[in-house]
Structures are given as C-alpha cells and as structure tokens.
C-alpha cells in the first residue's frame, strides 16, 4: 500500500530554523508500524530524518510522537490503522515539550516534574527486622500505575499543561499516587500537602486525554481523582477545588440535583468573596438575556429525595 507520511520537520541549525511539513511516499506492508515506516524512510529516502527509539516493542517508552494529532508509541501503532482515505499519515513530535530536532523532544522538564513528587519510598517508623511487607491486594492495585513506561504521551496531550507549563502533569501525578497508595510509604500526608498547592492535583481539567493516549492503561486522571479524594479524606487545607467537590456532594444529598447559585456561593463563600462578586456581571447579563429557567433560579429537590438520601447514609455506613 502506498502511504504518504506528512512529517513535521525542524532543524535548529538550519537557517531560518522554522518547523515545516515534508511528505514522503513509501510502500508499506500490512504489518508495518509507524516506527518501521519512519526507519525505512530514514534508511532509503532521507537520512536526515531524526527520531528516537530503542526496544521497538512498546517497552522502553522512547518512541512517543503525535500520530494524526494524538500522542502514541510509533512502535505500537500500525500504519494501516492510521492512514486516511487518501493514504496519508501525519507525524509530529510530542506537544508540551521543546523539540530538539524533527521528532525528538527534550524530556528534561518531564523528568524534573517526576523528581518533584519524590518518586521513592519513604517509610516511617522503625525499620523492620526482615523486609517491608505489603498485602498482595494492595500491590495488585498498584501494578496498574507501576506499568507506566515514562513515555510522555500523556504529558504531550494534556490540556492543562498546554495552557500552563507549571502544572506538574499526569505522569508525575500518577507516579505520586503510586507512592501515596503504597502501604509501606509513610509520607502520604506530606505528599498530599505538596500536591494540594497550585500546579498540583487540583489543576487537572479532567479532559481524559491522558487516559485515552496512554499505551499502558495507567489511567493517570483516575489516579489524580483518587489523590483528590485521599486529600479530602486526609483533611488537607481546603482549596476552591476541594470545597467545590464537597459542596457539590452536599447539594446532591440535599436536593438530588445541582443548584448552581448555591454551588458558587458556597464554594467561594466568605473565603473568596471577590471571586464570587466578580461573577456578578455575568450573572446579571444572563438574567437580562432571559437565561433563567422557568422555575426560577432556585432549584427544588427531586421528588422522593428523603428516600434517595438513605443511599448516601448507607454509603457512609459501609466499612
């Protein structure tokens, strides 16, 4: 099958050094991965094409790049699954990190953020006689996160990082969870306190890009949500994020449904009156535009809410 590879090229040493797209035509086989094709291009068509790879078997994590707009391991992605009707596959370097040359990105910032979450075990108390023991159940739970191969795909496509490079990002947060949830670790609270700061676990926008692109099913966003609930449980100082989640849950308990004015008032409340007041012009304009439901701005509870509340109580009784 003739495939056209539309590859984003960049050479910092060329003048002028502006990224551009270059197309290569290649005869590809049904079994070919994008990595096979790129290596073929380098060997037969253009030896200046620069890329990074090692294992070719989805283990080392070095061949992440954007294929048709989404990050993926080139060695795990079949050409035929990606070719458009016209036989085109677009290949670009990962996003949210500097490009060194062509498809090779600088991972220094990635590793810096992983180091920031102190990715090593910090046991508390006396050292045991033998080994540190952990139940197999707890370790099984952790295998999902431990499967991370640090390929950076999640970081490349993260929507929160795209607008704010200070965000610690999905890979580092998944790694943080791996230690917060490890029964042998004694530093969960200080870890959660650090993650509670701006740029930490509350800055994720829940876009699920990291879940979708991860080649190893790590589910970084799920881990971030678990960090948030553990943070709330551990009583870390409230943020507008944690108050929002708490108030949201309480409103559903009371009414069975959302009550937007209440949610905003109680989330910002007296702690952040200026933020609440800053929403007023928008609310007023919404009123003028008739953007208010027929039943008025205050929401009544769903019918049968008393019975419904018992589900919450049952949940609280559970072990």
């Amino acid at each position, binding site marked *: 099958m003739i495939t056209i590879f539309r590859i984003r090229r960049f050479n910092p040493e060329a003048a002028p050094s502006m990224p551009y797209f270059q197309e290569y035509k290649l005869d590809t086989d049904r079994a070919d991965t994008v990595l096979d094709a790129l290596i073929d291009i380098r060997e037969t068509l253009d030896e200046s094409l620069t890329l990074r790879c090692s294992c070719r078997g989805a283990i080392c994590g070095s061949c992440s790049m954007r294929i048709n707009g989404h990050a993926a391991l080139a060695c795990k992605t079949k050409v035929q699954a990606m070719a458009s009707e016209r036989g085109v596959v677009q290949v670009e370097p990962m996003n949210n990190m500097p490009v060194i040359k062509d498809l090779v990105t600088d991972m220094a910032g990635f590793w810096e953020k992983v180091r920031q979450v102190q990715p090593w075990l910090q046991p508390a108390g006396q050292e045991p006689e033998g080994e540190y023991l952990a139940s197999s159940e707890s370790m099984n739970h952790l295998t999902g996160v431990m499967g991370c191969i640090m390929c950076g795909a999640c970081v490349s496509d993260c*929507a929160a990082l795209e607008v704010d490079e200070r965000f610690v990002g999905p890979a580092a947060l998944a790694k943080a969870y791996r230690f917060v949830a490890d029964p042998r670790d004694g530093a969960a609270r200080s870890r959660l306190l650090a993650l509670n700061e701006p740029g930490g676990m509350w800055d994720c*926008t829940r876009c699920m890009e990291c879940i979708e692109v991860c080649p190893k099913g790590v589910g970084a966003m799920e881990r971030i949500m678990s960090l948030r609930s553990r943070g709330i449980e551990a009583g870390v100082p409230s943020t507008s994020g944690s108050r929002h989640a708490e108030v949201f849950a309480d409103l559903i308990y009371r009414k069975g449904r959302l009550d937007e004015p209440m949610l905003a008032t109680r989330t910002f409340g007296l702690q952040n009156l200026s933020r609440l007041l800053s929403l007023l012009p928008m609310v007023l304009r919404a009123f003028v535009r008739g953007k208010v439901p027929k039943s008025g701005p205050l929401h009544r509870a769903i019918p*049968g809410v008393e019975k419904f509340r018992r589900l919450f109580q049952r949940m609280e009784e559970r072990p």
Partner: protein
Amino acid sequence: MKFAFFPGCVSKGGCPELYQSVMEVYPRLGLELEEMTTASCTGAGVLQEKDRKLGDVLNARTFALAEQAGLPIMTICSTCQGVMSQANHRLTTDPPYLAAVNEILNEEGLTYRGTTQIRHFVWILLEELGEQGIRQRVRRPLTELRAAPFYGCYLQRPSEALGFQDQPDRAKSLELIMSWLGLEVVDFPGKTRCCGFPLLTINEKNSLRMVASHTLDAKRNGADILVTPCPLCHLNLDGMQSRAAGQQQADIDLPIWHLPQLLGLAMGMEPKRLGLTRHLVSTQGVLDKLGSAVA
C-alpha cells in the same frame, strides 16, 4: 422511538435554552420522550472526585429506574452522557461490583440488572434517524453558514466506555450531522479538546485561556459559529467568552450554538422559539447573515 429523557441539571438551570430547543425539535423527529423527574444528578465527575462509588450508586439508581420502565435513556449533555457511560461500563463489566452496588440500591427497593442503554441525543440522530432521516427534515439548508463542531471531552473520551469500537461514527457524529444540515463544516484541532469548564472554579485563568484558544482558533479557521452538544461547554465558551477576550485583549465574538438549535433552524423553526436570543454572545449577526437563506 421512545426514550426515558434525562435532561440533566444544567439544561434546567444555567442553560434553559437547551431544554427549550430540545422540547421544540423532538416531536418533529418522531421521538417520544418521558422525562425522568425522579432521577438524580450524575455527579458530573465532581462528586466522583470525592467518592466514585457513591457516583456509581446514584447512576445505577437512574439506570434501574429506566430499566423498570423498559426504556433506553436519552441525554442531552456530553458530561451526563460520559459520566453515565463510564459508570455503566464499570457496572456491566464487573459483576461483583454490580452486586455490591445493588446491595446499597436495595435500600430503595431497586436493583439494576445491567441492561439499560444510554445514548446522547446526537447519537440518536446519527443511529436512529441517520442521513436520510435528517436530510428529509431540512427545510432551510444552512448553506451560507460555516460552523465548527465542539464535542466536549466526555463525548470523546475514554472511547472504550463510549462504545466507539462498535459505533465508530460516534467519534465524528457532530461533523456528520452538521454536514447533513447543509452547512459548511469547519475543521479545527480544538474540536475534541477541553473547554476549560472543570477548571473554572479552581483556576479561572487557565480555564479562560482554553476558552480563548479554542474560540480564536475556530474563528481563524473561518467559523461563523461553534456548535456543541454539551451545556457545560456552552456555559464556559458562551458565558465566559467576554472575560476570556478581555484576558487575551482580543476580539472574539463567536456565537456558541446548541446542536438542537442548529437542527431546529434547519428544520425551519423560528430562532426565538429555539432560545437563540438567550445567549450571552449574541447570535443576531449570524441570523442576519442567514437572513436571505432563512427568510
């Protein structure tokens, strides 16, 4: 075809024009709706930050109510749909988990057997009416309109829970339906990205950056309007647009339409009846532009 209609909190709260437009268009599509008045909020992914199992219990309750009525559920919100699809995926792929959830549901005398179908309005248009069913209802082809789709994360990811494997067209449902309405579909990279709404309370600055980036990008690609099946995207992209424009010192002014409004207009209905006058970013300019085609 008859559905248990789950309108969601926002279409009955901050985006009443969405509910209004759905009520206007559905009878003309041959759909029959029975509104679920006793169902609760899905938790919108926020409750799940605090307690995911609690979220699954509340959603299983809604699924059980529909199952009792023998009806599939119809949602009109990407977030409701995604949160419900994910909950249903967990419940139906893990029998012991479903049993544990049912044990709590028994408190209300309910059991969920795992058979309820949950579908977004957009998917119903795609899969029940299809190209022919939609084209034959178009009275005013909107050929002069250039519109860009904006899905909302929850209608795109995670693809596994959303059934993209069996229904691959769901990934491009908006583009397909919009093209059947006769308009020019504008493609742009932001169409499947996050609108920033979940960050609004936590980090407004970053949330507004997302609003500005996507709306400006769509405009640069030539869009007259952005069309969304998600009222939460609408709240941020429409409601916060002027503030995002201020933050970036840019002129945006891009009207954000709910998909049922676009459908209704193409079916020949009056803009006012579809709630098109109830937006913060005025739709008037676009309606004027369509004047000749719409008159």
